[in-house]
């Protein structure tokens, strides 16, 4: 869940809790206060009634019917005296209850009722004085509705305002993430300009990322220097030895044996050179030291490679079929794309059986271009496919000088260009290498 949403939810929940609490408090205190008032009034009335027991109306009513009832017109109040079981030692206390009664057999009303027992002329009577609390109930329901309404409005308002505010508050944060982390492919092109924010925490984040990037780019520069140094420091001595051997070969008094050894050494040196150059190429690609500014037409590159490798294809009596249907160009580095396709096609020649075939086809599905190079060669097992892209991984091959770096180069170049590689292969049947130029990836 986004921080913005979390904050808004938290704020809403706390506000709901506060409103609910205060609403409840108000309801309870209103009930308490109004009941209190009513009870005080009822007590007064009780005193008054007891004082006027001797009055003719009540006295008369009691002595004739043993019951006295008095309601006012709107049934808002009533006084009721009923006989009870005789008890000479009754308590003087009063009891309050809330009950619903219908006094005129029509409508029910809720009353706060005072009950009191008293002795009069050798009889025990129960005096009940009631006063309606409809008005209090009404007030309570209004307050309830009002509280609910306020609650709802507050909820909506806080949610919206919190979302808007946190969005505004977090804007610099997302800007930092976007500009300083997501859009940075290469620490060399890092944008050190500060993102404007008044939040100190974000300033801290911005500064930390910048200083981290500074460290990374320093390491990056070191790595680049290291690569340049290695290339210089290793290749120069190789160059000296190879020149020296070539010069020794010029001497006419050299025995045939020594001459053979010289040539063998030159070949070994050449192998060393190839390995160093391959590793250098991989690290340069992985360090983004190549420019991606060329528009490379795949079909053109394939044609070029076909011409370059024609003699090897003929030598093995292979059938080379070019089924390319689309003219597709990719933004990238032309020499690298050339090396990429060259290595794949060269492999399909190298591992092919004599009189086999190589087929190049392409398709365009949902704007995603893919090219497939299929051969009828030795094929690989799944385990071999999994390891195929590792450095120095090589398979049984007729060619003694395979360095096992061809597919490692393919891997780094495809990663550099965001190209997906899929290998499907059947042992002794052949291999298909599919390059998927998915720009969304």
């Amino acid at each position, binding site marked *: 869940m986004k921080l913005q949403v979390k904050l808004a939810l938290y704020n809403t929940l706390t506000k709901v809790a506060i409103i609910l609490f205060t609403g409840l408090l108000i309801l309870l205190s209103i009930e308490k206060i109004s009941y209190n008032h009513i009870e005080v009034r009822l007590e007064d009335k009780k005193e008054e009634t007891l004082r006027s027991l001797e009055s003719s109306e009540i006295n008369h009513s009691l002595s004739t019917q043993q019951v006295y009832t008095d309601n006012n017109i709107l049934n808002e109040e009533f006084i009721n005296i009923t006989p009870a079981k005789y008890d000479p030692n009754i308590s003087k206390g009063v009891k309050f209850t809330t009950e619903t009664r219908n006094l005129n057999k029509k409508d029910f009303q809720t009353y706060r009722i005072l009950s009191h027992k008293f002795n009069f002329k050798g009889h025990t009577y129960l005096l009940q004085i009631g006063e309606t609390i409809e008005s209090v109930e009404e007030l309570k329901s209004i307050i309830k509705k009002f509280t609910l309404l306020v609650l709802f409005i507050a909820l909506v308002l806080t949610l919206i305002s919190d979302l808007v505010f946190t969005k505004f508050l977090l804007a610099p944060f997302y800007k930092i993430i976007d500009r300083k982390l997501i859009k940075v492919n290469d620490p060399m092109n890092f944008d050190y300009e500060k993102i404007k924010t008044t939040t100190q925490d974000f300033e801290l984040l911005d500064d930390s990322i910048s200083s981290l990037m500074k460290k990374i780019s320093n390491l990056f520069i070191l790595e680049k220097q290291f690569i340049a140094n290695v290339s*210089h420091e290793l*290749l*120069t001595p190789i*160059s000296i030895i190879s020149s020296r051997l070539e010069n020794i070969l*010029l001497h006419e008094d050299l025995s045939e044996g020594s001459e053979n050894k010289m040539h063998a050494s030159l*070949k070994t040196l050449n192998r060393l050179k190839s390995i160093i150059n391959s590793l250098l190429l991989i690290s340069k690609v992985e360090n983004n030291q190549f420019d991606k500014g060329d528009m490379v037409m795949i079909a053109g590159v394939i044609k070029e490679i076909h011409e370059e490798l024609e003699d090897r294809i003929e030598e093995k009596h292979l059938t080379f079929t070019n089924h390319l249907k689309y003219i597709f160009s990719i933004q990238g580095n032309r*020499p690298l794309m050339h090396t990429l396709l060259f290595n794949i096609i060269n492999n399909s020649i190298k591992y092919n059986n004599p009189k086999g075939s190589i087929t190049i086809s392409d398709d365009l599905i949902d704007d995603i271009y893919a090219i497939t190079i299929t051969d009828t060669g030795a094929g690989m097992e799944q385990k071999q496919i999994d390891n195929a892209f590792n450095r120095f991984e090589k398979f049984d091959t007729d060619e003694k000088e395979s360095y096992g770096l061809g597919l490692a180069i393919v891997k780094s170049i495809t990663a550099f260009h965001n190209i997906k590689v899929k290998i499907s292969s059947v042992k002794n049947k052949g291999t298909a290498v599919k390059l998927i130029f998915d720009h969304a990836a």
Partner: protein
Amino acid sequence: MNVLIVEDEKGLALEVDEFLSHEGFTVEHARTKKSAEEKIFVNNYDFILLDLGLPDGDGFGLLKMLKGLEKREDAVIILTARGAVDDRVMGLEQGADDYLAKPFSLSELLARMHAITRRKHRLESNDINIKGLRVNIQNRTVMYNDERINLTKKEFEIFNYLVLNKNRVISRTNLTEHVWGDVLEINSDSNFVDVHVKNLRKKLSQYIPIDWFETVRSIGYRINI
């Protein structure tokens, strides 16, 4: 022809010196940018072999200075271990005639120097005569008594390279690199150079005996003149 080797690695400079002297060049050395500048000011050279990484500066600066001088036709071949495509492009853009990445073979260097000489001086007699065969480098043809021998591009390249480096054993590795360039993972050991040589010899032998075109067992080839 005189050559200035601008190279701080003494060992390499000495080997190149020995080789080129053997080929009849007059060779001078400069080990720093400063001494190279002095030498270039004083003398005209047919060739300047320029290393890019010098102890007191970048070889590009030297190239720029040379191109700033008037009436100079010194051919510049950049020799560098940096090998980056950018360096290659930049070098050629700034007026270098060729570019060789270290480690290079001396016979390749010689072939490049010959190519530049022919280009610069537009040699009238472009033809090289070998046992009655006329090799025309400009048109990339081989003639025998006005009859053209039909060679493929690669067969011609191989023949031409062997002729340029006559009387010297040229290994398959060396030939592969010359003809196919410095392509990674092309393996010198495979016999596809042999296929071309076999075809080449078959074609030549239809015209003259080719006992001078020697196969050196397990190494490569040599043209003896």
